[in-house]
């Protein structure tokens, strides 16, 4: 007769070891299957930053600046709401270790550094809308590198699970 979940729980050491190995493998598989964050989110933040640079460019009318930055703030809030509501299938917080956060922060800081260096360089060269171009560049950086970073993070989490 087949065992049922209600049967007295008994398991041989070999079966217990096999169960634990299978648990690790299946957990690693589901964690590895998806990126840690959707690329559209940092790209959206990049667009927000770019828009902010555009609407605060010297010479922009006050009305346009206020309207533009207000719309951008509403769009960013919407982006955050959509992320919170749709991106729930993420690795459990216990898997988000300092090394994972560190890798993400380093990537963000590289983006910020690229943006600042470009903005200062273009502004120094008196290029019109230099800060906006810098914002576009960092948005492109996020779009191009985001998927690789997001999957690298979940791969690292999966490897940690497999190590036990």
């Amino acid at each position, binding site marked *: 007769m087949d065992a049922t*979940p209600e049967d007295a729980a008994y*398991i041989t050491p070999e079966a217990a070891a096999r169960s634990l190995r299978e648990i690790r493998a*299946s957990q690693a598989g589901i964690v590895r299957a998806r990126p840690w964050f959707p690329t559209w989110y940092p790209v959206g933040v990049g667009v927000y930053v770019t828009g902010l640079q555009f609407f605060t460019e010297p010479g922009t009318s006050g009305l346009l600046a206020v309207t533009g930055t207000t719309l951008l703030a509403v769009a960013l809030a919407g982006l955050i709401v959509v992320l919170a509501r749709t991106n729930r299938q993420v690795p459990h917080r216990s898997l988000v270790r300092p090394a994972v956060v560190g890798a993400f922060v380093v990537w963000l800081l590289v983006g910020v550094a690229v943006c600042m260096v470009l903005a200062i360089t273009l502004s120094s060269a008196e290029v019109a809308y230099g800060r906006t171009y810098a914002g576009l560049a960092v948005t492109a950086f996020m779009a191009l590198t985001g998927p690789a970073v997001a999957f690298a993070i979940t791969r690292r989490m999966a490897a940690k699970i497999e190590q036990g």
Partner: protein
Amino acid sequence: MAELDPIIHAPARLRVMSLLAAMEEAEFASVRDAAEVSDSVLSKHAAALEAAGYVVIRKGHVGKRPRTWLRLSGAGREAYAAHVAALQAIVAQSGLSLTGE
């Protein structure tokens, strides 16, 4: 010493619990595919685990499509951790290793 939990002892249930333990929340289809079970088998186990207070089932929509999400409750997470600890203790007492077959 932690004891094996009869509610999650069955291989399919343990697989479902372990998948949910790794995620904040998981969509029904993702769990079904990862656990390699059918819709009906997962539904049956999810309902049993929900009745035990181990799993929370949430129904909603993505666009117009109905979706079901599963997550472990606090009690479910504790029960899963205790069950895994019991398995580890059995393996440790036997001197077996988890690194190979």
